[in-house]
């Protein structure tokens, strides 16, 4: 039995939400984001990007700012942080995505869908959409590949590139309701890409520093700013790109519910 919530019934909830928001607001305002906590760490009049001696820096953020290109070989600071300094978290995030996609698929297999009804209701796409999609799709995919390939050089990376690819595939699905990618292929790409990510991490265990996800080749292969540089980072981003792309595509596919 649904009843429309009248305004005065939701007053307590609104009040509570406001109180909560206010508290958070005050707390966040109190925090001086970005200010150095320890005075001695930076020289006076420090400018970001300046070369400084990082022996005494204990705050991670400052060190990333100062040293990322030498240490990781990546011109893109965000990539350096995401894939190298905090690559372990990224592996976790990738896993989260994987779990969500797989989980949704697993649960959906328990729900019988009446696709006969659905299929009857699908409107055929317009001509413009159909032909336009065929023209645009390869460009989108190319762009996506470009983004994740150049993650260490320009803004973007594996996640972004993968999503671009997936949105391209979504366009394709809208344009061609009856066609789709093979679930088997998607699954294989997904898993292999994941295994590749971990494999690259294990490479780190076997190189000089014996640390998971270490990027010991950072300085060895090319210079900062070139396509071939930053050691394993672009390779990792490639794996991520494939993974995210296939995963999101698979997700859209399952939502579409063609039953396979």
């Amino acid at each position, binding site marked *: 039995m649904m009843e429309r919530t009248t305004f005065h019934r939701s007053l307590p909830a609104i009040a509570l939400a406001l109180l909560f928001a206010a*508290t958070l607001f005050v707390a966040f305002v109190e925090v*001086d984001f970005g200010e150095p906590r320890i005075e001695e760490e930076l020289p006076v009049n420090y400018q970001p990007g300046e070369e400084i001696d990082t022996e005494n820096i204990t705050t*991670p953020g400052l060190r990333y700012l100062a040293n990322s290109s030498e240490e990781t070989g990546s011109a893109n600071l965000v990539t350096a942080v995401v894939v190298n300094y905090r690559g372990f978290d990224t592996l976790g995030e990738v896993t989260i995505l994987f779990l969500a996609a797989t989980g949704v698929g697993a649960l959906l297999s328990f729900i019988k869908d009446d696709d006969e009804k659905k299929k009857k209701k699908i409107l055929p796409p317009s001509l413009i959409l159909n032909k336009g999609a065929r023209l645009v799709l390869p460009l989108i995919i190319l762009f996506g590949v470009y983004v994740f390939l150049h993650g260490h050089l320009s803004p973007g990376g594996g996640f972004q590139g993968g999503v671009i690819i997936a949105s391209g595939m979504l366009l394709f699905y809208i344009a061609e309701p009856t066609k789709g990618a093979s679930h*088997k292929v998607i699954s294989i790409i997904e898993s292999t890409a994941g295994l590749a990510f971990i494999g690259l991490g294990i490479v780190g265990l076997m190189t000089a520093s014996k640390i998971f996800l270490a990027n010991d080749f950072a300085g060895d292969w090319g210079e900062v700013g070139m396509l071939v540089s930053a050691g394993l980072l672009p390779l990792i981003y490639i794996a991520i790109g494939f993974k995210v792309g296939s995963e999101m595509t698979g997700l859209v596919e399952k939502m579409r519910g063609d039953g396979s």
Partner: protein
Amino acid sequence: MTPDPVLLIVIPLLAAFLTPLVALGSKKFARYVPLIGVLAMGVVSLLLLKDLIEVQPRTYGAYNTIESTTGGFQPPFGISLIVTPLGGLITFGMIMVALYVLVTSIQKKEDDKGPWFEMMAMMATAGAVGMVITGDLFNMFVFLEITSISGTILAALPRGNGEKGLNWKGAAGYAVISALASFLILAAIALLYGATSTLNIAQMAERVGSIDTFVAGTALLLMIIGFGIEAEIFPLNGWAPEVYRGSRWGTSTIFSGIIGKAGLIAMLKVVTVILAPALEGNIAMDILLWGGVITFIVGEAAAFTSKDLYRLWGFSSIGMFGLILAAFSLGGENGIYAAVLIMIGHLISKPVLFSLTGAMRHKDRDLPLSVLDGLMGKSRVTAFLFIGAALMLLGMPPSPIFWGKYFLFSGAGGESNWLLVGLLIVGTLLEAGYIGKLLWRVLPKKEEAKAFKLPITTTVMALIAVALGVLLGAVPGLLQDIIDLVVLEFGGAIIILAGVI
């Protein structure tokens, strides 16, 4: 040979990515991949635990930790994992619970159309282990997410007991509320990072003095509520009975043995190491102490009035979480001994009880208590395992929980905290009440319920578990080494013992 703790994460992830590949070939064989993964995790965890106990620390009175870094940079610039005595012990315990569930699932009756249950079970374990051994606050959050998602899927999977559909209510409830919890925790992390400019837990503990009290208080509030939700603390645990009520027994075991425990340990870690020193008095530990006690009483009371066996065990688990939290918060040697012993006893007995319950099939979603009637007359092995595990949970000697309760009462008395002693007695009375009710039903009766034949895997695992519990209860000295190390670990973190309110 000390293994690298990062293996505890790498192995399950490898197995997880492999599983769908194998499933493309053979769905049946794919179900064994997570089992192998958990076995490997178990071996690693056992070796780590062995090292923690045996290797003498460099300085007297210190405890060993085993560290691992990732990304190639030393902490705090890279993310590190630290296996402390408590972490090592809990990790081993959680992996054993997962092993129990996965081995017993070999002969499961539910048709999941794929290895999804096993995979999610392993990933929930991996996430939980990560939460416990990580040294980085945001990394903890990531693992929390892994655990939550796996948990949601696990909760949704159908029970296969005449109930064909997914467990919408339980899973959706958990999804929504754990999303809220994640938000709260993330907000707290943001505040803490902004205030200390680091995410490394150890470094944050150093810098905690510089945090403004209002910020610290807000972060503490958010953390307590957020992790309290995951740890099934009252009154934040409304989602839990729904999950226990509708999920299959394996899911309930994982929630009560793995997911909840991880939330509990994470909360303790964060609160004691970072936040408690930031506020005046001992207020954080007091809140946890009384929150724990209230959870204990409410949980046991709810179990006492339960008419459905799944819910009963679920509420019983909630009660135990409260008790363990209270014991940790009480602190001191007695409190830590109590907490660890009760935790171990719970980790051993609950899976047995849940698996036996799961073997009792019934046409309704709820499992009425009458399925137990006269069990001893019909299915003797089931009955004895049931009685053994139930009495172990209650704390009849020999049981690790017996010792745990003894230490808890000694500790509470030692603090002259009479309100605590009284409340503990009330909770224990309630607990005895429902365990007694169940035992009464199991005794031979005129009208008997139908016999239940246990699958062999269940019988074997349950026997091993009960035997282990009895052994640890009779010779608790076996655990002394590791518990002493945990006491040392907490000695540094809990500065003042919780006082009377």
